[in-house]
């Protein structure tokens, strides 16, 4: 039995952990820690940027879009009472995205704030057929979102923003322009006008809160523009704003990628392309 007894030199912890060894071990440990944390952070950052938020006023068509993209068919819908978060696979590249459809009712539309930290992009859906009537209300909602986007911490890349001119099928095309182009132009003009009104009003206004002067930062900003300062989407300081024109038709199957029968794809193709191109 004596022969199996290990020599004390080898077992002794005091000799095994010489100062040099301890330093090396500490270094190795630190390096491993750094690697793990970098790895985790990376995973986290890829994880956080997977959401595409569908925002916009009630009845704009957000849920119809979600249904078409996720279930590949346009199901009938009614006013949403809660947020939908569903997964879609892009036809090319097989990327998956999480679509977040936030209800447009003013009482619950704030819920999009909850998803903003995970957002890769925001699509603001506008009903082209009613924008002339609802301009002010739509602009108020968009303002809220622009403000939220510009107040995100700068450490994070701001989500891309596109304005979806939806229900283009209800617009009439002319010889010069397609229905989509007309819808986009109209929405851009009306929203720029309404947002400029809001900007001007806030720029030389004294908020109720600032009367007391304690918390003066309550003002809603987010409409700053380069150049003359007048609100233009092209000059918005928050980043680039895209525009796409789309439509769906209830009860139809979606045409995911263009084929012989549908060389143009379906009414959502412009939106799909934008989703494909997201960084």
């Amino acid at each position, binding site marked *: 039995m004596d022969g199996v007894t290990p020599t004390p030199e080898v077992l002794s912890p005091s000799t095994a952990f010489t100062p040099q060894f301890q330093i090396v071990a500490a270094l190795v440990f630190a390096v491993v820690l750094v690697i793990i944390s970098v790895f985790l952070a990376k995973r986290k950052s*890829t*994880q956080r940027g*997977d959401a595409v938020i569908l925002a916009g006023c*009630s*009845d704009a068509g957000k*849920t119809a879009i979600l*249904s078409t993209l*996720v*279930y*590949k*068919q346009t*199901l*009938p*819908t*009614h*006013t*949403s*009472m*809660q*947020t*939908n*978060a*569903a*997964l*879609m*696979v892009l036809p090319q590249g*097989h990327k*998956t*995205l*999480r679509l977040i*459809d936030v*209800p447009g*009712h*003013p*009482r*619950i539309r*704030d819920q999009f704030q909850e998803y903003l930290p*995970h957002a890769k992009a925001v699509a603001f859906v506008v009903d082209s057929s009613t924008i002339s009537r609802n301009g*002010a*209300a739509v602009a*108020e909602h968009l303002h809220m979102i622009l403000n939220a986007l510009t107040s995100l911490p700068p450490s994070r890349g701001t989500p891309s923003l596109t304005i979806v001119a939806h229900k283009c099928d209800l617009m009439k095309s002319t010889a010069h322009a397609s229905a989509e182009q007309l819808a986009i132009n109209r929405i851009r003009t009306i929203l720029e006008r309404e947002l400029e*009104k*809001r900007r*001007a*009003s*806030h720029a*030389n*206004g*004294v*908020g*109720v*809160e600032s*009367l*007391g*002067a304690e918390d003066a930062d*309550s003002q809603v900003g987010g409409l700053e523009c380069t150049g003359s300062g007048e609100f233009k989407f092209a000059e918005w300081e928050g980043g680039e704003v895209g525009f796409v024109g789309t439509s769906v038709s*209830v009860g139809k199957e979606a045409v*995911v990628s263009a084929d012989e029968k549908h060389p143009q794809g379906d009414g959502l193709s412009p939106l799909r392309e934008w989703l494909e191109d997201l960084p």
Partner: protein
Amino acid sequence: MLDHCSISHKGGVVLWSRSFTPAASHTAASSTSPVNSLVREALIEGRSSDGKYEKDGYAVKWTFVNDLELIFVVAYQRILQLTYVDELLLALKTLFIKLFQPFLATFVASLHVTSSAKLASSAAPSASWNFRKAFEGWDGVFDKLLRGLEDKAAQERRTRVAHPARATIDVTPPAEDTSTIPSHSNADVQDEEQIARNVQALKNRLRGRGGHAGRRGRGRTDVGSGRDSLPGSDSETPTSKRKSRAKAQRKWGESAPTENDMALLDYSYDSSVSEDPASSLDLSTLVDNGSLGTRTRDGLYEVKDWEFASQGDKNTDDVIAEVLKKGGQEAKPAASSLGALGSIFSRLTGSKVLTEEDLKPVLEAMKQHLMKKNVAKEIADKVCEDVGESLVGKKVGGFQSTTSAVRQALANSITRILTPKTSTDLLLSIRTKLSTPVAASQQKLPYSITFVGVNGVGKSTNLSKVCFWLIQNGFRVLIAACDTFRSGAVEQLRVHVRNLGMLGVDGATNSKGRVELYERGYGKDAAGIAKEAIAYARDNDFDVVLIDTAGRMQDNEPLMRALAKLVATNNPDKIIFVGEALVGNEAVDQLTKFDRALRDFSAASGGQERGIDGMLVTKWDTVDDKVGAALSMTYVTGQPIIFVGCGQTYTDLRQLRVANVVQAILSD
């Protein structure tokens, strides 16, 4: 007979729906459809009374299945007073879930993805979603169920007429039958009664039509009157099916038909459904789709549902029969279908399904808590009821207690009530009006705001604060002293205007000329003074007119009418109700009556209907965290709190922070 029925997810996707009339199918897709209005006004804004919602002549009833996040909605003409709607809803819910539980569970899970990484690895959401196929056969089941209930309702009517003695001891007769209860077998009496009842029915119809029920009310009237004048016309019905039913009903054919019976005989909608719905119920598709469920947490349901499905058609019929027999009283089908294994499983994972009994004590405690925070009792009741409704049947995880689930739901609910549904940006609203071009022939009108409220709440003081704020924003403001009632009111405003005139703005040492008082002494007609003030403001280039009115109690009819007249003649841009944060239970009465009076009068005088547009809550600094009045006020009017007054100086005006109020109300 029904107009519209739908089954949908709370996220907005409609799983199944059917319109029974052209009018209903026409509006079904528009944003003004009964279902959309229900969701917006009753379910999101909480403006319904006792589980019933009425709109445009429709009565709408609904029920939730909270664990699957489904809403079942039935809409019908309000004048019909169908007795079987509640039963139908319950039966629909039971059957639908029994038949499609696995598919529904998968579907709901697909709308609650928390991160793409997790699901993408387990399974790609392939193109296998086929909703039409998934719910194949449901149409047949629905038809069968509806027909069963209609028959049952008719049967009940028949037995009641055949045995009047029994009907009299019936403890809870359905509302529409009250007129038949004293009926005897005496023919003369019945004749008289029939006339009386027809008159009543006609009145009902006319009343219903007054409220937009026109389109369909007309068709119904024709059917009804046709039957009344031609009792034998039943036998002329074309299909054999109809004939047989008509024969069965011959027994009571001489007695008065009620609306309900007529509805039963009304075949104007397409009832020629397949005679054997069960055979068209391809249950194998159910299994196909059910297999989707393996991806999610629902492995346990699968076995049971497979068995259910493989037993085939007979089972479906049995279920319908069972449901009909029980009167659809099976309230928690999901729980019962779990079986013993399920309950063990849920005990292991610590999750449980919230039942009414679980919730009751917690909700009661919450209600007491809300009332302690000065929420009016009526409102506390309603809020807790809504919260309970949204939680019954919901699964809560092991870590979450019932209390914390209720607390969370309550916080959501209060936030929703307090969040404004219209813009509260007064500055923008004023600027928009002032910058909107008017026709060359007309002069630009100033923006006018009327302050109303009960006595002694601080109307004049807070009006001055708003005035100060407007002056700071560069507007010229005219104050109209329309409190011609309380002595000293005009003098008080005069002092305020002098003070405001001496305060500087934008570097200028005083704001003379920026604010003026329009006064005509006491005892005069307030509406007239307001009118003159607006005209004066228009001619002298004022931007805003603030109209101070006399405080009045909501029960004082003549004064309330005078106020309504002031509003109707001057049509102000905003009507702001000023109320104290100290108000408790009376908040409900005050606001309902002010709002009602304004609406009634403005509607009666032919103008557009106007109610309170927003509130200013005063003495906010005196209530600490007992801010319940804010909740009561917004709940009653559905309008936002535009300002809160929190002190004695002109700068003591604030905007309401919803998050802070929610926190204060929930804090212990």
